[in-house]
């Protein structure tokens, strides 16, 4: 499917508003859209809404053999998936340029920046380590996927807990959540990416561009940073030329944004932690927006089971009164290992091709054919069971 094309009219209007330092959704130049962070039942699940952009992530772990180069370190695998749900332009299982870029950037953001302790994931050096998988799904694409993906990935990693392992020499036991409380990963810092869109040869910039702004932008600068103002990666794309001044300004803005977002994530994590501690049963139904008329809820309810058995028996009995009129066919055997039943239409497959393994090659087929004719007795509609024809 194709995306709706951008009309000249929209393009011109967008550029004009940007020149007037306005944005379509009423934001200021440096404003982020609303960020909403939701957690689920499982540890390591997180859903992030960045305006209308929606992404979700699930962290899981499994036991694996470590890499030979790093025998005492755990492994981290990140997978971003662009669900065809997110945009009509996305196709399932297609390695698009955007997907490759997002995957690569997320990997740089999390793995290369060493944001959590990989060594604590080692169980037996060189033999068994934890492999942490981050599965990110993009569910609705309204621009700035990179920032949304980086927020959801680091938040779900911070939320995740892995089973505890006790080691006795070379032997180890993995404890279930009932036996021992699962333990969180030790996160050193939270790298968060901040995207800047540039327009008019870099004379205007916007933070957190949405889909239509991304369509008219000339260049993009992504800065990933943690709250200690340490830059984890910078990526510029689109072939714009930026002044040193502009980059430093962006990194200043990024540091403020990262601080805000980190605080937001911490708060959300704290809230969830408290809710779990108070044993507030999480429910997805509770997380539905109550004020919206597009949402609806229904409490659990019993079902009257009284006469179910009678209804069922009745149906069965009724069917048994008129038993199938179709008589059973009796099988006919042609040779050791070959037989047939029924006499509906016969197939284009002769019966004999597999059983003829002996005989002279030359005249074989015809000889066999004639010989066989007398052999096969087909019993029609017979109720007798013991008629077997053998060679």
């Amino acid at each position: 499917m194709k995306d709706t094309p951008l009309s000249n009219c929209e393009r011109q209007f967008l550029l004009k508003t940007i020149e007037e330092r306005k944005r379509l959704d009423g934001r200021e130049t440096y404003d982020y859209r609303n960020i909403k962070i939701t957690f689920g039942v499982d540890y390591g699940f997180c859903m992030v809404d960045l305006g209308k952009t929606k992404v979700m992530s699930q962290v899981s772990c499994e036991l694996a053999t470590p890499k030979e180069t790093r025998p005492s370190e755990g492994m981290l695998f990140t997978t971003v998936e662009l669900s065809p749900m997110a945009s009509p332009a996305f196709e399932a299982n297609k390695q698009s340029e955007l997907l490759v870029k997002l995957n690569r950037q997320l990997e740089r953001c999390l793995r290369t920046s060493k944001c959590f302790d990989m060594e604590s994931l080692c169980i037996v050096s060189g033999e068994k380590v934890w492999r942490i998988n981050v599965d990110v799904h993009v569910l609705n694409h309204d621009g700035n996927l990179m920032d949304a993906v980086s927020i959801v990935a680091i938040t779900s990693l911070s939320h995740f807990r892995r089973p505890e392992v006790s080691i006795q020499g070379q032997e180890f036991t993995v404890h279930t959540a009932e036996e021992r409380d699962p333990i969180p990963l030790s996160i050193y810092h939270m790298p968060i990416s901040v995207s800047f869109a540039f327009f008019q040869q870099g004379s205007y910039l916007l933070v957190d561009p949405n889909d239509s702004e991304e369509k008219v932008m000339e260049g993009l600068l992504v800065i990933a940073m943690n709250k200690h103002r340490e830059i984890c990666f910078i990526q510029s794309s689109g072939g714009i030329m930026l002044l040193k001044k502009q980059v430093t300004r962006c990194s200043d803005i990024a540091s403020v944004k990262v601080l805000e977002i980190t605080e937001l994530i911490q708060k959300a994590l704290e809230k969830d932690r408290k809710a779990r501690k108070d044993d507030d049963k999480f429910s997805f139904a509770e997380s539905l927006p109550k004020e919206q008329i597009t949402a609806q809820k229904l409490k659990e309810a019993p079902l009257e089971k009284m006469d179910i058995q009678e209804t069922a028996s009745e149906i069965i009995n009724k069917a048994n009164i008129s038993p199938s009129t179709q008589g059973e066919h009796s099988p006919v055997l042609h040779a050791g290992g070959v037989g047939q039943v029924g006499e509906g239409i016969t197939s284009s497959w002769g019966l004999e091709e597999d059983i003829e393994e002996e005989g002279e090659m030359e005249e074989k087929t015809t000889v066999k054919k004639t010989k066989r004719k007398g052999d096969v007795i087909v019993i029609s509609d017979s109720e007798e069971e013991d008629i077997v024809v053998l060679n």
Partner: protein
Amino acid sequence: MDVNEHEVSPATREFGCEQNLLSRPDGSATFIQGNTNVLAGVYGPAEVKVSKEIYDRATLEVLIQPKIGLPGVRERAREQCVRETCEAALLSSLHPRSSLSLILQEVHDDGSLLACCLNAACMALMDAGLPMSCLFCGITCVISTEGQIITDPTLQQEKESRAQMTFAIDSIEKRVMMSSTKGSISVQELQEAIALSQRASERIFQFYRDSVHRRYSKIQ
């Protein structure tokens, strides 16, 4: 049948849904059954690839995305079930040579996942405003080791059961559109489960109706 059993396991868990929650798809819905949650998005009628074009009806594609890892053979089989159920409900001959795509994303599986997929699919198709001859809903039943039939089971109940059945029921005559079973089932058990599902389906259809009423409540 004593009344206490109902308290042990409710026939249906808490339901929730939200329609039109995604901005990009033509129709979207999330459906919640207890802790099971599925998100659905629909695009179409849209442009169809020439290789997939059908001259007298729309081409429906269904994609089920698991939460962890990539989809495999099990998802393919489920997609087939959902697709053929939707095809029977949709009046696809009204949009020939076009494509309809339905994407289902597992958000959390706590039992009855296929049923929840069907419910989310139906809600999303309704939201997209695609013409349908009837609605459908999904209900999962399991038979516990004691022989008790439990509707809308949790993952735990599914694991402890000896047999599992998922049905799709149509909204007009409450008949069986889709059936997928696991485990060995006696004929009596099957018919009981169908009868129970038919009864449970009425609640789900009422829930659909209430949701739509609420959604259109502000348009007079």
